[in-house]
């Protein structure tokens, strides 16, 4: 049987073709449906050209990020969990590097980098006297990019200390610790201590001579803590011996050994980062609550200084 070629553009009425035989009707109907489907698909594909209009996109980002009307720009910040630390708008001059030097932000970024590289390092590291040093050798020589990973963690840590100091320095030079930001300055001082402690606890972990002696020197000072150290003023009178004083508590023993390694590891990977994250959360929250970044503020004049409230 010869199938009839449908005439016209293929969207012919199937009713007309029906009497010409059952087989022919089926084919042309399928064809017609196929063409209709294709058209729909083409029309739909066009809408995918703008991924931002898709349900998937909208479900993730909730608002458009590339339209420049004020409402959208504000929503881009407010409706994003990571960005909503920011206010929707800031002092126009605060976006210049010259005011904050970006130091607080860079410090935070380095903390994130350290968390990321640190977690990767944890996959390869065992905090035991038998394995710790070998794990470092393994990282350096066998793990793909292991050396780069270790280097980045090390240098980011050093850099974070430098940027924290410079951040503090900037805060002083701009007088940003003044009312109402006094308390946030104190939170910052705690963060400074935590940053130093993070570095210090990490120093022991490779279990090499460098770390061992640095921590030995460091914790030896704890022996002389007044009242709490076995060699400190009034320490012996308080019943302190090398086996129950504050140094013993830090090291988990009277010498820097496997317990000290484990304690260092736990403080370094869990204890201090958790506490530091909490303090950072408070620090950032307070920046917002204290009215955002302090400046650049309009200068005040000496002649405008008000008399003290008595």
């Amino acid at each position, binding site marked *: 049987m010869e199938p009839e070629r449908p005439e016209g553009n293929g969207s012919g009425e199937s009713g007309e073709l029906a009497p010409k035989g059952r087989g022919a009707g089926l084919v042309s109907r399928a064809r017609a449906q196929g063409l209709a489907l294709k058209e729909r698909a083409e029309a739909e594909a066009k809408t995918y050209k703008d991924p931002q209009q898709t349900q998937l996109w909208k479900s993730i980002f909730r608002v458009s*990020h590339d339209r420049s009307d*004020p409402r959208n*720009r*504000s929503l881009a*910040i407010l409706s994003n969990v990571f960005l909503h630390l*920011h206010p*929707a*708008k*800031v*002092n*126009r001059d*605060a*976006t210049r*590097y*010259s005011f904050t*030097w*970006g130091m607080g932000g860079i410090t935070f*970024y380095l903390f994130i*980098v350290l968390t990321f590289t640190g977690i990767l390092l944890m996959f390869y590291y065992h905090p035991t006297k038998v394995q710790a*040093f070998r794990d470092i050798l393994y990282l*350096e020589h066998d793990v793909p990019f292991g*050396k*780069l990973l270790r*280097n980045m*963690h*090390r*240098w980011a840590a*050093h850099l974070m200390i*430098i940027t924290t100091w410079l951040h503090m*320095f900037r805060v*002083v030079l701009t*007088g*940003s*610790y*003044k009312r109402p930001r*006094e308390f946030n300055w104190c939170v910052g*001082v705690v963060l400074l201590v935590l940053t*130093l402690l993070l*570095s*210090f606890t990490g120093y022991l972990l490779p279990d*090499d*001579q*460098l770390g*061992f*002696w*640095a921590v030995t020197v*460091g914790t*030896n*000072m704890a022996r*002389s*803590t*007044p009242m709490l*150290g076995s060699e400190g003023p009034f320490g012996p009178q308080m019943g302190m011996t090398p086996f129950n004083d504050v140094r013993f508590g830090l090291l988990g023993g009277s010498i820097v050994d496997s317990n000290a390694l484990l304690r260092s590891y736990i403080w370094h990977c869990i204890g201090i980062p958790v506490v530091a994250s909490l303090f950072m959360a408070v620090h950032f929250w307070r920046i917002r609550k204290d009215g955002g970044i*302090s*400046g650049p*503020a*309009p*200068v005040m004049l000496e*002649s405008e*200084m008000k008399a003290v409230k008595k």
Partner: protein
Amino acid sequence: MSTVIERPRSNRWLLWLVVSLAVVGALALMVDDWGQLWKISSAPDNIPIVMMIPLVVFFTWLGLKQSKDNDKLVGELEEDPALAKSHHRKTQPWRPGWARELHVWPYLVRVEFLAAIIVTIILFVWSILLNAPLEEPANPNLTMNPSKAPWYFLGLQEMLVYFDPWIAGVVMPSLLLVGLMVFPYVDSNPLGNGYYSWRQRRFAVSMFLWGFFMWIILIIIGTFIRGPGWMWFWPGQTWDHNRVVFDRNRDLHEIVAGWGLPFLNLYPWKAIFGAVVVGVVFVTGGLFFHWLMLRRRLEWADIKSPARLKGWAKKNGEFEEKLLARTSILQYLTFQFFAITVLWLFPVKLLLRLLFTIKYIWVTPWFNV
């Protein structure tokens, strides 16, 4: 409102350049052992402190430069009340039509993003070029000499030279941190909140700089100068592991006892003498800070004429007196306590130790200072 004030370009930087080159050249001539100097400065863990020195210099300059610009503006506005009313009071440009605030998206977020990219690139390059150090496995039987803490703790370690460990390792760091925390509470000056300024906050800023630089200098001493046995080796001097120094370490009371007051070697006179010395250090420190906080700005002309210099030293600044009047007694005493213990007692002891090899200034049966 948007008056542009023309400022003549100055050539003073050329002078600075020549002077600094001369200083660097003179220092370079004094270096004996470049290899030793290179070994210390290029130790991977010391690279950050080597890097930090120019960074601190740069940011000090950047901060003080912005302070100077603001100070100039403050001066102009103080003199012209009409301008003070209409001016937007910033050194940054501003035009009447401009919004005072910008959207964080994209104007701030893009700056942060750029900063993150730059920091990431720096970290990658640094980590590719320089390997983190790894020494031999830890060995309690083989003491490292010198055994040094990481550079950021060398300030603390260096303090061990000047004080007993309980002061250097416990009391001083605590005072330092508590001192930092009380800083905002004792600074009663309402000016200079949120902008760089030197003119309005000279005393507060210099107190911080004093502490900050002291800390950095201690770190530099600890890193570059202390060698085997924690002995003093000038930068570029070879580390001689067999060097022995016969330090005539004496206590202050022993020296004074040698001047014909032998009873000072005995208790209780020894302890009383020490208490008096520490008391004197406290009082002189307190007087010094009190005097300093009331000084008006020192001008070039003051330095050139002895009469004016005397006037400067004697007569209190008006603005400074106003600031002092705002300070409560508690604020004042708290400030003095931390300033004297951290910023005064410490350098005094440092100089006594380094210049006169004096070990203790106060000896008691329980503790020594």
